[in-house]
Structure formats: C-alpha cells, structure tokens
C-alpha cells in the first residue's frame, strides 16, 4: 500500500509553474484491438503510477467506468428522477454514476439538468438538480479560493483545534485491514473501482476525521489518488463539510444508519459486530467524540 501521501499540486502555491523540460513530445497510439490491448499499452507507458503492475500486480487496471460520451448519454437517459429522490441515500439506490463524466467535462451540468427536466416535472426533478447544484456550488467556491481548498475554511466545530488531529491516515485503514467490514469494504472498493457511493464517502470521511481524529486533508489526498471523479473542489470541500471546517456542525453517523442504508451487508458478517464502536445513539456518540463541545451545542 502507498505510504504517506505526497502533496498535491494544488497544495503548492507557486509563483512560477514548474520548469518545462526540453524534452520533445511524442504521439501516442489510437488503434487498439480491445480494452485489454489498451490496458497493456498503458502499463508499458505509465509504469510508475498508482495501479501500475509494479504497484498492484494482481489488479484490474481499467475501471468499470468505460470512457466516452456515449456511455454518459446512456447513463443520463437511465436516470429516473422520482426513484432517485426516494432511494439515493441507499447504497443500492438509483444514483446516476455520472460523476467521472461530469468531472471531466464529458457531460455538462446544464445538459444533465435539461435532460431530466424534459422527462419530469420540476418538483420531481428537484432532488437530482439540487445534487448537480452542489457541484456548481463547489466549482464557484474553487474559482474564488483556488489553492485555499486545501486550507481549513473555518475552525472545526468539534471542540478541538486543527493541531489535535493527526497528519496521516493509519496504514490499516488504507490497506482495508481495520477489522470493520464497512470501512475495509469501502477502502477496497475505492481502490478497485475508482468510485464510492456518496453515503459511503460520507461514512468514511466522518470515520477518518471524527473517530480516528485525523486531519481531513489526509483523507482528501487518499480519495483524490483513487477516485475517477476526484476533483479538488468537490472532494476537499465535501471533506471540509464533514469535518465542520465548512459547515455549522460535524457530520457523524452510527451503525443503525449504515446498516439500514446497506441492507445489513457489512454489519452481518463484520468481525467487530459484537463490539462495533458505532453501535450507539447519536447523543452517546456526540458526547464521546466531542467531549469539549459546549453541552448546549452537542445535540
């Protein structure tokens, strides 16, 4: 597993961009028999990045998300706004999985919005459009603060200060070896597919920041290195939202919430099912996690 994560380019506030070498450019291939053929070519070309053979000899290289606009159009056509609204918080809910396409500008937010409004009333489409708006919002914040997405926007509202949080993730978390079936499952899924459901991202982020008391930046770097939709605005600012450095209060969750939204698939077989640290009421967890917070703010 990757050791401590090096910093990202957006974290470096440089006056001068890195020097461009003298090296001439080369044209890359466009003709491939199939996906496997492309995969072999990419391995030879980029042999020292995350997911290369040297790094992960036994893993599939390409993600389950095929590139290209045709795929994005199919996914958009499959969005059912009413069902989305009802089920989106569940891990098997009718979410679009459009994020890698939107993040890379293959499909625009307005195209996605226009399409669902053609097929459903504004009231039915509202939840989906509202989620698209989150991306527009984060992008606007990014345009304003740039490198600042790596800095705490506000103080933590947890009763702790930034210095109370560790700088790095525990290696067991990244390796998927915490002994908590949910966290281990999400760590593997993140690495193997390059995607996590929104709720899983929130659970992982809250676990990292509030249960492990690690700085959100460490988690954000981990996600960015694996997510196909990884984007310094949506990613970092969502981490800050969970952490409470860009929201009014910290986001936390408990076992009941995860169990319900995953149909028990993690908890039932979890090695820690009889001593789950999340198996508590929100009041008890709040007292435990944020003991320094003024009592009137805790619930």
């Amino acid at each position: 597993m990757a050791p401590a994560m090096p910093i990202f380019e957006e974290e470096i506030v440089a006056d001068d961009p890195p020097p461009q070498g003298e090296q001439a450019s080369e044209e890359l291939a466009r003709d491939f028999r199939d996906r496997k053929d492309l995969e072999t070519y990419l391995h030879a070309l980029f042999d020292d990045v995350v997911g290369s053979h040297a790094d992960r000899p036994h893993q599939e290289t390409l993600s389950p998300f095929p590139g290209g606009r045709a795929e994005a159009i199919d996914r958009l056509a499959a969005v059912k706004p009413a069902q989305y609204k009802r089920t989106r918080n569940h891990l098997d809910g009718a979410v679009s999985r459009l994020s890698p396409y939107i993040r890379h500008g293959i499909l625009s937010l307005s195209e996605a919005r226009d399409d669902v409004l053609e097929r459903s009333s504004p009231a039915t489409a509202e939840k989906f459009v509202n989620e698209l708006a989150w991306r527009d919002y984060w992008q606007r914040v990014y345009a304003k603060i740039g490198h600042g997405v790596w800095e705490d926007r506000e103080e933590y509202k947890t009763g702790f200060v930034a210095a109370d949080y560790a700088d790095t993730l525990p290696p067991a978390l990244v390796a998927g070896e915490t002994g908590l079936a949910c966290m281990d499952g999400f760590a593997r899924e993140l690495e193997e597919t390059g995607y996590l459901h929104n709720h899983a991202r929130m659970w992982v982020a809250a676990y990292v920041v509030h249960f492990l008391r690690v700085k959100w930046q460490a988690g954000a770097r981990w996600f960015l290195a694996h997510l196909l939709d990884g984007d310094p605005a949506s990613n970092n600012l969502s981490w800050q939202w969970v952490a409470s450095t860009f929201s009014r209060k910290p986001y936390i969750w408990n076992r009941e919430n995860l169990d319900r939204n995953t149909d028990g698939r993690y908890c039932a077989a979890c090695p820690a099912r009889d001593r789950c640290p999340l198996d508590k009421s929100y009041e008890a967890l709040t007292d435990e996690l944020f003991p320094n917070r003024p009592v009137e703010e805790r619930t």
Partner: protein
Amino acid sequence: MTTLVWLHDDALRIPPDLRGQPALYVFDDETIRARHYGLKRIGFIYETLLTLPVEIRRGPTVETVLEIARREGAEAIALTGTPCPHLTATIEQVKARYPVRMIEPTPFVVPHKKLDLKRFSRYWHKVKDQALEPSASLF
C-alpha cells in the same frame, strides 16, 4: 481559419462549433505525478479520447501545445475555461506566446445578483428557480 482545440482534464470534449478542427490532448508526466493520477484515471481519460478525433501526445504541456499549434498553422488555440489554479497558470503561459480563445459551456445558472457562497443553502436559495428551468444548453 484553423483553430487548435486543446482538450484538458476539465473538458474532454470538442465544442460543437469547433468540430472538424484539429484537436489535441497532452499527457504530461509532471501533471500526472502532481495529481497522483493512477492508471485507472489515465485509462478513463484515454478511453474517452479514443472516442474523439483528437491527437494524443505525451510531453510537457506548454511546449507541446505550442508545437502542434504551429505545425497546424493555427490562428488560435481554443479551450474551455477551468477554475483549477494550476491549469489556469499553464493557460497563462500559453497565452503569453500564442493567441488563445476561451470557450464556456452553457452555465448551470446565471445568477442575477452576487452570490453568497458561505453556505450551499444560501446559494441554492438564490439559484433554485433558475436551476429548475431548462437552459437549452448547447454543450
């Protein structure tokens, strides 16, 4: 008139009015390292590029973009804007040496008033009605 369409990570797409123009994407090892792109992300970008009439090159971004623009005899380089500060710095370097035309996709909303970005709820309150109107987006 020839325009070179420069595709980058925030815009893997050829704007409709530039179809038929030469297009370029550059894999820059410096950028890949700095962004920690893994093979899965590179693969997703590459597969997307294979569906587009675009020349795929590997090299330092600024030099490569200028090299291909000159080779094509392009009067300008066209690309979609981005909030990414590093990409913006790279674009500035190109702008200093070649005519550049910025293109914007149809915005999600065009706020009438200055937006308060402190919280999503404040932003949403101001843009909601507009966000729920179709925009006849072109791209």
